[in-house]
């Protein structure tokens, strides 16, 4: 039986494909790191949570560029422009990291509610914002308002 030229071409292409596949398999087995890098070459790294940067440009002085009297209802002249750098970190409890014992120390949060917060966090992955705590059974608006100044939400 004789093959036509077209059939021969297709068959040799198939054989070549399989051979290339063999080669790629060997290479990927031999250099898994390089293969992984190649596979992910156009992927962005997942965004890293940024540390609060020291804000480089100091707040522009109040544009006192318009001379003359300040507007009648202008801001208080007494308050000198504060120097707002990065806000001083106080001891805020990170509800995305804290365990049940730590959470239970928040005002109005008992061990049961703390446990439910942890469970809800595990179910959701994380809380996007302090408001998301409202999804926890027993976390009403009053309670949330009470603990808001003590908590923070990280990633």
């Amino acid at each position, binding site marked *: 039986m004789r093959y036509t030229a077209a059939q021969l071409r297709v068959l040799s292409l198939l054989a070549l494909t399989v051979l290339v596949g063999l080669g790629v398999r060997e290479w990927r087995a031999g250099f898994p790191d390089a293969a992984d890098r190649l596979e992910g070459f156009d992927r962005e790294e997942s965004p890293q949570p940024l540390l609060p940067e020291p804000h480089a440009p100091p707040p522009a002085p109040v544009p006192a560029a*318009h001379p003359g009297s300040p*507007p*009648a209802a202008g801001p208080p002249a007494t308050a000198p422009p504060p120097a*707002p750098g990065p806000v001083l970190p106080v001891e805020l409890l990170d509800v995305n990291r804290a365990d049940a014992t730590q959470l239970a120390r928040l005002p109005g949060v008992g061990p049961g509610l703390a446990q439910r917060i942890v469970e809800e966090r595990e179910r959701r992955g994380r809380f996007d914002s302090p408001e998301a705590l409202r999804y926890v059974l027993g976390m009403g608006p009053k309670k949330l308002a009470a603990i*808001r100044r003590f908590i923070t939400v990280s990633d």
Partner: protein
Amino acid sequence: MIERRLETAPLLPPAAAFTAGIAAGAWLPFPAPGLLAAAAAALLIAALASHRHPRAALVLVLAGVALLGALRVAGPRLPADHLARRALDGTLSIEGRLGEEPVRWTADRTRLLLDVAAVHVGPERRPAVGRVQLTIYGELALPLGETQRVLVDARLHRPVGFRNPGGFDYAAHLRREGTLLVGHARADRITALTPDAPPWPVAVKRWAVGVIAARLPPTSAPLLAGLLLGERSALPREIDESFRRAGVYHILAVSGFNVALLAGAVFGGLAMCGVPRRGAAGAAAGALVGFALVVGGQPSVLRATVMGLLLLAAVLLDRESQLPNALALAGLALLLWRPGDLWEAGFQLSFAATAGIVYLGPNITAWLIAHRAPAWLAAAVAVSLGAQAAVTPLMLTHFNQLSLIGVVANLLVVPLAAVATTLGMLALLVELASGVLATLLFHTLWLVLIALRAVVAVAAALPAAMVHLPAPSAATVVAWYGALLLAPGMTASRRIRAVVGALAVLVAGLSIWPWLRPTETMLRVTFLDVGQGDAALIELPEGPRLLVDGGPGGARRFDVGERVLAPFLWNRPLARLDAVALTHWDTDHSGGLAAVLTRFHVGEFWESGHPPGGAPETAAALVRSRAPRRVLAAGQRLWLGRALITVLGPGPGPPQAPNDQSLVLRLDWRGVSLLLAGDLGARGEALLLERAGPVRALALKVAHHGSRFSSTAPFLERARPRLAVISVGARNPFRHPSAEALARLEAAGARVYRTDRDGAVILETDGRVLRVTAWARGVTETWALDPEETSEKTSENSTAPGLTGGGGGRAGSGRRSRSRRRARSGRAAAPALRDRDACRGRAPSRPGWS
């Protein structure tokens, strides 16, 4: 020339007439019986007159077909047991069949399409009909699949999109697909009534996706699934974006490309093995139908399948095939089945691209060959160029996207994609016989996919690979397609050449016009409907634009920045924001800014100095954008054009909760004042009042979406806003806005606008007149800002209604009379609007802002 083309495509006129009928029917709601009678009369007369007056008969037939098109969309009344007729408060127990495979957005968020069969009320089962789209929160415990029967306890409501000028009408889109209700439910409230036993096409698709995922690494697998099956839900965002930028996104949708490859492979393979022509064509037709069933019913698939079957039928019948006719038949069939698809981007793009290739392709090829291009290159460029020319207005209308690199990128990408698709189909076939051999094929395939991704990445990385432009006006679109329609005749006639040239100039002029439009004289503030969150764009007549907050967004949820803010800004049109202010870092304010910072040039970024939290994507985008950052604090003042921005918060002192550290901005322009209160809470308001800044304002962006812990009485007493805008999402879990806050606003005499009811709220003013538009309701109210009355009483500094009604919308009149009454009684009322006119006097010397 056009006449000759029509002769070979007898179905084109009726298809066009039917389409026109559908379009007209959607605009003008004709009564169905009248339409039926008119269509019958037209067709009857045509039949009677066909012998004597063939031309008149033809016109009548086409009119009849158009009337049938209008009849097709003349809405049938909802059946009595339709779910949409029920009262929808509370939780409903609904039973139904899954209309599609569940779509998993994230691990704990899934979308189900439910064809409702019954509603359970207590022990009773009442039959019902309707189609419901459900969002399921939580991990699904049981596997769900198409056609499965389930019982769900869900809360239902009518769909509401984001109602902004030029925005995508989500509710209309769902209605066209037959979905009148949406809802949500918890994963543990779903009961499966039958096991997950999908029909064979679904099973085949699942198997194929599973094999691909098992044989290929995690990024390449979804790419191949997209190429072969159009299944691109697992494709990483940045890859998806690269394909869009490179203008080659069409290869990720199943279309004529896949169908041609499949039919070609089956037909060619069988023919090579000695199967007779007709047998091979029959087998290829069978393969096409099976393929269409497996990949599902998107318009592009159906169009390609219908056309492919017609071409194969031409082979079977030994006839010459006519592409335009096949296209017309496909359009007619699809619109008969699903007339609403006419308005869908997928349908329009698929048909426009094919029509462009069929109509323009041969002429472009001939022209290129005449200019000594090699034949293969000429054909490839012609396809790419023809399709691009036809879809450009549509891409701009729907997505504001114009890929400049597309025509070139396609020359490389399409062949690579063809190799990958063919090899992928082969590998899946081999997988049935031998896993080992299939693995080797997948290894080769991986290499091809990497090459494909590399080409796309390079094309997408070029600067200006894609530009974003405002949606073209109707006149521009008509002129563009008119020019395309006449273009093939250009070589023959000088007059046509002149007309096409004139049309081209017209298109160019109309496209440039929005950018050159003389600057407006009004200050415009748009509080966008971004669901539960804040976003407001302030546009000054002198040019500067300030965006305050960006609504919710981020990788894990619906990205308002990408889907709502960016299109709105592109349609403005606007490419640069002079400043973006972020009041605080909660995700409902900062999430959407990631897209804004990535896609627009941001002159400055204003923030409160509170450390980033909650929105890592935005923080990363901010660093990448290299926008200068400015930390604002109470007491600072800045000029934005001729508007004075006064920073009222955050103040000095010990750190407060993030909300109370919100940036609070006040804007004064020609005596109009606006207070943007961020998410300030009661504590923050008290501190702000202690600092004794200028709080009184004409309009107030109500703090914290109308939470009852904000907008306290003392604060409102001092602010005394005439207008209050609450930026809030419908049915949000926090029950914002609260009745208490609304009552306090009412007591303070403020007229309240809410984005959950009013859609985008737009304030426009020239300093004398204030117009307030509630976009979703289509109501504009006009108020006169009365300078005389104000200036008289400025000295007292405590009176003077800023507003007296100037007529306007239906809701305005009651308010107006009250406002007058207050003015007369002299007690209370609005801020002394004119007492800050000093600002205006000084402003002109400072055109920019510091």
